[in-house]
């Protein structure tokens, strides 16, 4: 069914002026807001996740319940009109923390659904780089893609006493859902959890499949003794790599932004004597 035809077939309320749509922060939530806009024939001023909402002057707000089937219909609509790559761009852009992301995605969807946009333009929408509707979406997408890469690079697992491998991260976009396929394939022999402290989302891989859990607090058992030792080995390895004559911390900071450096064991402040003590005193219980 055409998205435009949706209008009028669902329960309508009085149209709201200056309305902001709020959602639960998931991709489904955002897509349902777009669905709602079609149903209500409204043009929302803002589409934001509920926890980030800051009301504007004389603005009303409306919370849109996530509904998987509605979201799926929006997805099908985008894929039909603009192809699956365009939907891929929407998925990434929607993960951006920028409060404008919702509206940018909404405008993009309207553009590709609009019959006045020629068929050819709709099909090749991602090539239309100088069109602000498209370039805004792609700018959001690019930033998320970068953050995704950072997660693949800098997520660090520790081995917990219950056998699970655990990592914390604090990305500035909701990228955990986007990197779970990568980690679940690569580490398919180890059950693991990646917890995003900024978005309070945990990606959980149980050894077979992965799923997302929204959780504000997460209790983690302590790590194994071996794990602490391996981390020390890693730090020592890192320290040995440095070539004094090439020292260039500015360049390193460019690659590892300070906000991410905090969660990297190799960037931890430490003195070489402390390391020495560990290597002399502890023994590694395993074969190594």
């Amino acid at each position, binding site marked *: 069914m055409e998205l435009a035809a949706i209008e009028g077939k669902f329960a309508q309320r009085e149209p709201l002026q200056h309305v902001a749509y709020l959602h639960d922060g998931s991709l489904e939530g955002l897509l349902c807001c777009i669905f709602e806009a079609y149903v209500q024939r409204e043009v929302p001023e803002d589409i934001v996740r509920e926890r980030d909402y800051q009301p504007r002057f004389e603005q009303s707000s409306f919370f849109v319940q996530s509904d998987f089937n509605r979201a799926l219909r929006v997805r099908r609509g985008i894929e039909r009109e603009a192809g699956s790559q365009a939907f891929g761009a929407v998925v990434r852009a929607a993960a951006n923390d920028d409060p404008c992301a919702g509206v940018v995605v909404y405008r993009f969807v309207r553009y590709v659904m609009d019959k006045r946009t020629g068929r050819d*333009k709709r099909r090749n929408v991602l*090539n*239309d*780089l*100088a*069109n602000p509707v498209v*370039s805004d979406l792609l700018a959001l997408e690019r930033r998320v893609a970068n953050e995704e*890469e950072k997660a693949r*690079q*800098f*997520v*660090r*697992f*520790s*081995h917990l006493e219950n056998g699970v*491998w655990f*990592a914390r991260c604090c990305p500035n976009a909701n990228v955990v859902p986007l990197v779970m396929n990568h*980690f679940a*394939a*690569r*580490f*398919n*022999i*180890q059950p693991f959890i990646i917890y995003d402290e900024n978005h309070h989302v945990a990606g959980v891989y149980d050894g077979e499949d992965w799923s997302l859990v929204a959780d504000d607090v997460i209790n983690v058992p302590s790590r194994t003794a071996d794990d602490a030792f*391996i*981390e*020390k*080995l*890693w730090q*020592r*390895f*890192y*320290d*040995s*790599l*440095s*070539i*004094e*004559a*090439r*020292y*260039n*911390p*500015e*360049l*390193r900071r*460019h*690659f*590892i932004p300070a906000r991410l450096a905090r969660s*990297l064991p*190799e960037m931890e402040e430490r003195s070489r004597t402390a*390391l020495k003590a*560990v*290597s*002399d005193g502890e*023994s*590694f219980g*395993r*074969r*190594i």
Partner: protein
Amino acid sequence: MDLMTKLEILADAAKYDVACTSSGSSRAAQKGKLGNTLSSGLCHSFTPDGRCVSLLKVLMTNVCIYDCAYCVNRCSNEVKRAAFTPQELADLTIEFYRRNYIEGLFISSGVIKSPDYTTELIINALELLRHQHGFRGYIHAKVVPGASPELIDQLGRLCDRVSVNLELPSRDSLALLAPEKSRQRIVQPMRQIRDSIAEDAETRALVRRKPTTYQHQVRVARKHEAFAPAGQSTQMIIGATPESDFQILNLSAALYRSLNMKRVFFSAYMPVSQDERLPQTDAVQLNREHRLYQADWLMRFYQYQVEELIDEAHPFLETDVDPKANWALNNLDLFPVEISTAPLEMLMRVPGIGPKGARDIVRARRTHALREHELRKLGIAFKRARYFITCNGQYAGSGIEFTRESLHARLAAPINGGRHGRRADRVLPGQLSLFDQPFDPKLEGNQTSAPKLPEASGATDPRVALRAARSSSIGDEVLALWS
């Protein structure tokens, strides 16, 4: 010796090996096995000098029976020696990998007992990794010069990438500084690796080919594991010997062409010894290394030919403009180009426009006229590109004289090497304390006709021999290596 100390010694000894990429091979994950590889590679950390850390880069051992002058591990150097057992190394790799510290292993080694013995040790470790641990991550192994062809074949099938170090940019320098590594010992394995990779690709194409007739298709059994699917690379030290950029770039172009190298790495010589055959200076030619990499990049990703970047009359790359800008300045008659119609290859040659930018322009110009605003949005470095383009017939760099001198001043950009380190900003390429008189690249370059041959009596003096190496023509070198 405990593992911590071993790791420290063997990582420290391996750090001058520049290559640390994990790209070029794409092996999908498999249920029940650890790891995969991504064709783009992945950096997991960065050293305090900003180099990517992608692999656990260590030596199997830093014990070495050879005595290469430029190397910290040479047998005449007094350093602490250590060796991993194959099991230690395999376990350590797995432990790091599971924590997402690394993409895999980069194993190199000093020569312990004999090249074959050393290679066997490495093979043992890799077999443990691949077979006992079922490891599917990235492995890069260095081939020890002098190892037998059978062992190299075995090694290549356990690795994603193998490399043989060229060590130095000319035969004479090699003979002088690494007398035990004869040229054949380096080039022979390179050839063998090239052929094995090619053969392997052919077999794979056969297996993949769809049956074209209704005849029952004979299944070609996969005899072996793939041989080094990420190809081979090599590296050479620059600045320890007097070869010019012209020689070095021609050599690397020949390596790409004749040996199908995936990468040729350059590493600025770090003073590690008091040997009188080596330059005694504290300055490291990092800026030169930087320019060489830029030129290398242009050859690999922008389809520049080496002759376009450097010629014998100017055998060193410009220090204050990058090689791409320099090419544009030398070919001003080809500019400015029209953004709305220029072919992709020409767009890529505009300073400030990279391959991605060029592709984006081609995509975007189908539907929109592109002016400054649009180009900036596409991520083009408009500040540089403006002098070389017109947008719908209008010159974008107006107000500037379109001459080499005036544009040179606009494009000159010092290399930002940070505020630390021993960057040899003020050291001219080739001007090393090794030479009695300051070495003038311009003068040297013109001297191709009459190479300064050492006097017969001085032939044994390493300094004299080195000076001779400088003048030997690169054409000979390349031909002699690969004829």
